């Protein structure tokens, strides 16, 4: 026998139906704001940081044009979001590079201490710090000890002529400057670089030491650069706190000063 049941809808309340559907809509909105919004915020922070990394690359390129291509002025518009960009004068920077090389005429080892100055972006929503220091772009997290180098400076060793070339890029700012939001950075390089150039009769050693700012420690990034293959295949030899390169016939060091006039 077949049982045919009639679908009874007399008891269905339209109010309850409305409440159920409205509840679904509200739940949907709630889910979007609960999961979607934090996700977007996180996306926003990482996108701010990435934008800043790119902006730093642009600034690094501008500095390359100013120093290696001998262009006197460079203005760049940029947007700094989710944090602030600060300019540190060479004299304000705690970090320093110590370079020891042989003075051929004097016949002694000379020591040069160089304070690079810094362009530093500190994220306020996230915890990334991105710096442009001595021609390199560096990044670290505020709560961690490590650091990485995003873009390397152009130091090099030419094996054919045994020439070691070091470029130092100092940032000069007459007053403390900071930027958050859209702005324009004006840079100039009018002063000729300080050049140290030696042709050694006997191959010599040149050593480099990076002294980090304890508040803003990039020693790991620099260590990786010195020991990596950025300067020469195989890297420099670590000797204590110094990074040494032996058998140099020609040593060239150029120290450029880039002035940040306005930001």
């Amino acid at each position: 026998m077949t049982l045919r049941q009639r679908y009874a809808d007399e008891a269905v309340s339209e109010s309850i139906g409305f409440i159920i559907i409205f509840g679904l809509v509200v739940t949907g909105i709630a889910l979007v704001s609960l999961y979607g919004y934090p996700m977007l915020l996180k996306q926003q922070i990482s996108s701010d940081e990435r934008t800043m990394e790119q902006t730093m690359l642009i600034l690094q390129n501008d500095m390359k044009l100013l120093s290696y291509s001998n262009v006197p002025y460079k203005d760049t518009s940029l947007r700094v979001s989710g944090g602030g960009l600060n300019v540190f004068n060479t004299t304000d920077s705690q970090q320093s590079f110590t370079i020891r090389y042989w003075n051929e005429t004097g016949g002694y080892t000379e020591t040069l201490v160089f304070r690079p100055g810094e362009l530093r972006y500190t994220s306020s929503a996230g915890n990334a710090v991105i710096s442009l220091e001595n021609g390199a772009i560096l990044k670290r997290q505020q709560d961690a000890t490590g650091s990485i180098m995003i873009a390397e400076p152009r130091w090099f060793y030419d094996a054919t002529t045994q020439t070691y070339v070091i470029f130092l890029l100092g940032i000069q700012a007459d007053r403390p400057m900071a930027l958050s939001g859209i702005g324009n950075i004006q840079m100039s390089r009018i002063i000729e670089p300080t050049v140290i150039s030696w042709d050694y009769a006997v191959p010599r050693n040149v050593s480099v030491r990076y002294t980090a700012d304890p508040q803003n420690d990039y020693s790991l990034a620099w260590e990786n650069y010195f020991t990596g293959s950025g300067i020469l295949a195989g890297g420099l030899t670590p000797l204590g706190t110094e990074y040494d390169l032996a058998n140099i016939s020609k040593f060239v060091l150029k120290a450029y000063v880039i002035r940040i006039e306005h930001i």
Partner: protein
Amino acid sequence: MERLDDEAQWIVLMGFIVSIGIFFLAIIISQSTIVGQTTSEAVLEFPKTEIQDVRSEVIGLAKAWEVTANAGELAKRAAVLEDLRVLAMARKNAVLTVSVDPVTLADDPFNESRITIHFNNGVTEYDEFHKEYIEK
């Protein structure tokens, strides 16, 4: 309260679908900005014209320099090559060493000039050994 028609949820659903679509597009756009920004700087960095320039200058020199054993003439030539080296380091921040070595070829209407160019600016290293044939 009016009659409830359950087909109406399409409107909300479309809202969600469009929103999700926009969201994904946004992620793709934010990824794509990484690409394309390094092209111009790579071209600025790559010393194509510098190498071409050095090459044409050195071959021009080689064409003018005949085989000689005259010490004064050789010193003059060494001074020109030294100019290239010093100026390249001072103005272009590049290591540049050049040698030009003319050789007499017997039973040949041409003489040979052996040229080596070594260029390195930390980004690009370029080495060339070139033989330029010069009519006797």
